């Protein structure tokens, strides 16, 4: 499968990374090498095999839903570069109606 710059641009958009054309062009060769390796893997016959999503058998793990006060609210907010009055600050996503 041959990768095009448009595909890389589309994937970068999906991954929410605002990459420059120059950066993507510098990367496409390495990405193509990886896709070539992936394509070779498709020759492996896996007929009748179930996928392994987990290496050890795990099933649904249930526990009681209970409230625990970890008392780390202020510390959680401190981890953000911009927080005030117990809230994270982000750019406005709604205009002010003007």
């Amino acid at each position, binding site marked *: 499968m041959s990768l095009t710059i448009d595909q890389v641009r589309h994937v970068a958009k999906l991954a*929410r990374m605002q990459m420059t054309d120059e950066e993507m062009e510098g990367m496409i060769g390495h990405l193509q090498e*990886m896709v070539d390796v992936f394509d070779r893997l498709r020759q492996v016959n896996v007929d009748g095999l179930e996928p392994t999503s987990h290496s050890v058998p795990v099933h649904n793990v249930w526990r009681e839903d209970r409230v625990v006060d970890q008392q780390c609210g202020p510390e959680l907010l401190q981890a*953000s570069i911009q927080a005030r009055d117990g809230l994270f600050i982000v750019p406005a996503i709604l205009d002010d109606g003007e």
Partner: protein
Amino acid sequence: MSLDFLTAHELAGKLRSKEISVRQLTEAALDRIRSLDGAVHAFITVDEAGAFLAADHAQKRLDDGDPSPLLGIPIAVKDNMCTRGLLTTCGSKILEGYKPSYNATAVQKLHDAGMVLIGKTNLDEFAMGSSTEYSHYGPSHNPWDLDRVPGGSSGGSAASVCAGMTPLALGSDTGGSIRQPAALTGIVGMKPTYGRVSRYGLVAFSSSLDQIGPFARDVTDCAQLLNVICGHDELDATSLDMPVPDFTRALSKDVGGLRIGVPKEFMGDGIEAGVRDTVQAALGVLEQAGASIEEASLPSTEYGVATYYIIAPCEASSNLARYDGVRFGYRTKSDAGHVDLVEQTREEGFGEEVKRRILIGTYALSAGYYDAYYLHAQKVRTKMRMEFEELFERFDVIAGPTSPTVAFKIGEFDDDPLSLKMADLLTIPANMLGTCAISVNCGFSEGLPVGLQIIGKPFDEETVLRAAFAYEHRTDWHTRRPPIA
């Protein structure tokens, strides 16, 4: 007397006999870091104040007669494990300045055991790499030859133990990130079975493969640290609720009747002759000790790297979606709206290798490619698992080299990231199966350490430790020290 290269169990004896105090031991570790870390760069953060606090606390417990074996012993922790109030960068600009509000369970267990956390060690950004060159904070250096890499991604932890800075360290192993740096620096490194150690607070890279494990100077220390970190944790739903044995009880010198399979794919093309010969000699030692060595085959070894480099980036592309510039770490100065904030923060905050993996993972998961790549890779993983299970019907452990090569030069693969990924060829199979494996030093090639890898059945860490201990008992490679001041 220098404390630099003593094992944790030797140091514990000195603490208990009051020959040294925990503060003296802590000061010695910090001194060593001060004098050598400019050249080695094992650490991203050294927590002097926290270490002395922990040291005083440990001393009190010791004086009160607390028998915890690793009480007062210094340890370094890979910087992808959350430490409350202490920087946790994951080797990335995007987590610059991030101080977690909680401890990873494994870190909490170190504190509970009275160990002294000295600092946080360097790694490839988000543990994505095999050389510790992809750290935003600069590469770590191999104490055996400072122009060479210590392996990766837990290269800082390996370098710390190798250079005599801390007797123990924690790393994480997704495709070999504990075992390969252990091999390249000539120390002991172990990946426990997936589910043995809680992943709570380990910054997620590839959730179905990541596992925390120990670095040590000998197998006894490795078993003692395993005792501390293993165990069920309800905060990690994939941590398994099963009894944890006392791993030190498995340390027997007797390997009579142990059946060791050596896959021919582990000793074939792509493995340096010096590595192959050294490992062959090591297997001879185990054979002389009464183990049986037989050639075996793990044909899917050659597909491991491709399978891994589909599955791990797919999981990573999903796990790393959380870095949006809002809740932790770095935030862009660009302010053209919310989407721009997220996209610019990620563009500026992630390094090149992480971006490559996010892109390739997003691509392999995107519409039209999911079945062809991700689902197909998961089926190949099943095939690898079945081959392993078949081998384990005939053998107690599988053995071979840990790394196809000795430590390579820093910058050697700058223009060829794909070839660098082949460094994981022999370690990836154990991650695919989720099983336990250890690397121990088994000699030198071109003056650089070579690792012997021993892979066990899932949850049979004890047999792996027994084989490693029996080998160590009959050789003195683990006592060799790097030519560093």
